[in-house]
């Protein structure tokens, strides 16, 4: 086949299927001069005829299978149920949001000191005191052994003349709620 045969081939294939392209007249004039393309067109037209007779008509179906009807019904959610679902979802979101806000306002978080030098120690909650509610302050103090005893630490004779630097969380009620030791004990 020469180049022009390749060019006309798609047009002739479509023509054999009954689809007329705008270039069909030129393609057919080529076919009249080219035995290869003439043979090819003839074979393709025979193939079209055979394919058309091979295409079976679709059967008429009058009944939808029961299982499909059941699946269809099961998949339908009534509109009233849909709005109930939306209301439930909205309530759920509101409850979650409320819970989170309550947690944010009531949950005791250990405050972080602004001093970069002393943020390695952890606050020890003082057991007798309740968690501070909304606001609190961190106060740095120097405590002697008697002060420590008042805060609930056991008395030790070797601590008689010593003191320690600590951060104390003081709540709104003016009571200490947690303590963090900042330095090692120092001699008074």
């Amino acid at each position, binding site marked *: 086949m020469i180049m022009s045969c390749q060019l006309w*081939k*798609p047009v002739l*294939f*479509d023509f*054999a*299927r009954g689809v007329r392209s705008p270039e069909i007249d030129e393609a057919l004039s080529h076919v009249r001069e080219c035995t290869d393309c003439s043979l090819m067109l003839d*074979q*393709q037209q025979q*193939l*079209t005829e*055979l*394919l*058309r*007779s*091979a*295409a*079976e008509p*679709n*059967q*008429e*179906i*009058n009944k*939808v*299978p029961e*299982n*499909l*009807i059941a*699946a*269809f*019904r099961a*998949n*339908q959610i009534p509109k009233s149920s849909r709005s109930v679902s939306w209301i439930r979802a909205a309530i759920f979101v509101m409850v979650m949001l409320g819970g989170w806000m309550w947690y944010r306002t009531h949950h005791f978080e250990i405050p972080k000191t602004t001093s970069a030098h002393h943020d390695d120690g952890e606050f020890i909650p003082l057991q007798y005191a309740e968690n501070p509610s909304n606001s609190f302050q961190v106060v740095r103090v120097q405590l002697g052994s008697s002060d420590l005893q008042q805060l609930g630490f056991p008395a030790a004779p070797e601590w008689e003349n010593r003191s320690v630097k600590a951060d104390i969380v003081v709540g709104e009620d003016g009571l200490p709620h947690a303590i963090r030791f900042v330095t090692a004990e120092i001699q008074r």
Partner: protein
Amino acid sequence: MTATDEQLLVRMQDGDEDAFGCIYKRYASSMKNFARYMGVPSGSTEDIAQDVFLALIHHASRFDPERGSVISFLYGIARNRILRWLRDHSRELLSLSDQDQAELQSQNPLMHYTKEQQINRLHRAILGLPEHYREVVILCELQELSYEKAAEAVGCAVGTVRSRLHRAREILSRRLQNASEDEKEVNDYELSTLETGSL
């Protein structure tokens, strides 16, 4: 006035069971035929068709009218199901094709080929095509979809469908030609043997 597929689909999504029934009655047979032409045995085509409509029930919202028609959407689902089925049953299909061969060999070679036999031969030739050629032949020739609708179902460009179809037709034409030449040779040989025997 008959409702369009798109109108039926909208009604179906609103819970109209009759609309779903209409779509099923319109296209269930096409889906079964598509599956059978692709090589799924008749016993399993009903399952494929039911799978397609189950998918339609559950995923009707995925239909986008801007991307194609309802029929292309259904053929697209069917195509996926069929290709999966063919992959899952490739072993069984091999043994089936052996049976077909045995049936073919048992046929009388002197018998004149009827239209029905030519069609059977065509179906076998179609089954012998690679899947991407087979599906376009079936969609465009046997199911008479336009290039555009076939392209939507297959998920490729219109030009790709057209060129695949032309290539597939070339292969089919050549195979049918070769087969008829082989058969003619066998027939001529058998006839000459009979004639020699009768002398």
